[in-house]
């Protein structure tokens, strides 16, 4: 039985609109329809401070503020520090994964990815659905 509230607001962050669209469509297939978008870390941080989100799914390689900088800011913010954060990135070196883990990421998806991978990581972070 699903324990996940699929109405939770989710913020997806990527500087490629194509990727935002892919993630949004895949989330929609999983019945997560309350999805907002941001195209870099700074915009995402602003949105996170204006609205209560239940999950962030962010790319790493963005300018001017990267996904890693966003994660660091989130974890340093008293109100946001416990927000679930999934990194979705083409950065697939071990050192990247370690750095993200040390910064407090909840899960890490390497691009290109498929719907099953996204679903399994969402389950790992939010609970089974």
């Amino acid at each position, binding site marked *: 039985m699903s324990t996940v509230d699929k109405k939770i607001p989710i913020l997806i962050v990527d500087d490629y*609109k*194509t990727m935002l669209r892919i993630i949004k469509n895949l989330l929609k*297939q999983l019945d997560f329809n309350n999805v907002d978008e941001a195209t870099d870390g700074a915009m995402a941080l602003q949105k996170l401070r204006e609205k209560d989100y239940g999950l962030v799914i962010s790319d790493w390689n963005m300018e001017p503020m990267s996904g890693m900088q966003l994660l660091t800011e989130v974890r340093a913010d008293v109100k946001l520090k416990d927000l679930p954060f999934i990194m979705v990135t083409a950065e697939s070196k071990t050192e990247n994964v370690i750095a993200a883990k040390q910064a407090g990421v909840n899960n890490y998806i390497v691009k290109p990815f498929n719907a099953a991978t996204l679903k399994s990581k969402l389950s790992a972070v939010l609970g089974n659905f």
Partner: protein
Amino acid sequence: MVTILALSNDVEKRLSQLDLSAKGMDAKELIALVQDLKKGLDHQAAGPAAGPSGDQVRKFYHEIIGLADYIANARAEISELRPDDITGEHLPMVADELDAIVGATEQATNTIFEAVEAIESLSGEMPEKVSEEVVDCVTRVYEACGFQDITGQRISKVVAALKEVEQTVEALQSTFGEWFAAEDEVGQSRAKVRADGKPQRPDEHLMNGPQRIEDAISQDDIDALLNNG
């Protein structure tokens, strides 16, 4: 050879110090001078053991000639580089073309999205089994569209590498600036040759390839131009 030269200089110095017109000349000094001269001649006659052989000198000479040729070739190749063309024309053009590829793939991907999203929205009206299969196919298309993000990032890396090359060429240009300017004048009078070494075609100036959207004219504009008079 250096030893002989040094000896010769020494003998010359000592000869100049001798007052040969003086009757009271020191015989010991004269004998020492002659002995040194003889030593020098013996040294020269000793040959290979005392200095470089003729073969070694010839080899050394050929190496110097080879080095001079190498420098001349490098100079010619640097001249062919035409740094102004590289930094002012070729590299920006390549960067623009790569940016255009990213733009074109994004546009194509959006078109695919629109079509597939329309199909997905109709899946609710299909029989359940068909609908499941359609949604599964649509999902695979969504996944595949991730190529645009990946290729875009790879192209961005290439553009960054090109900028590194551009900066290096600019540094070279600033080092050899005046010399390049002089060579450029010479270059203007050279026969026009393409980068691949083939002679330019008469219509080379019209060989521009696909245009960026903002630079291109539409099919309607083309039709209008053709139909106008």
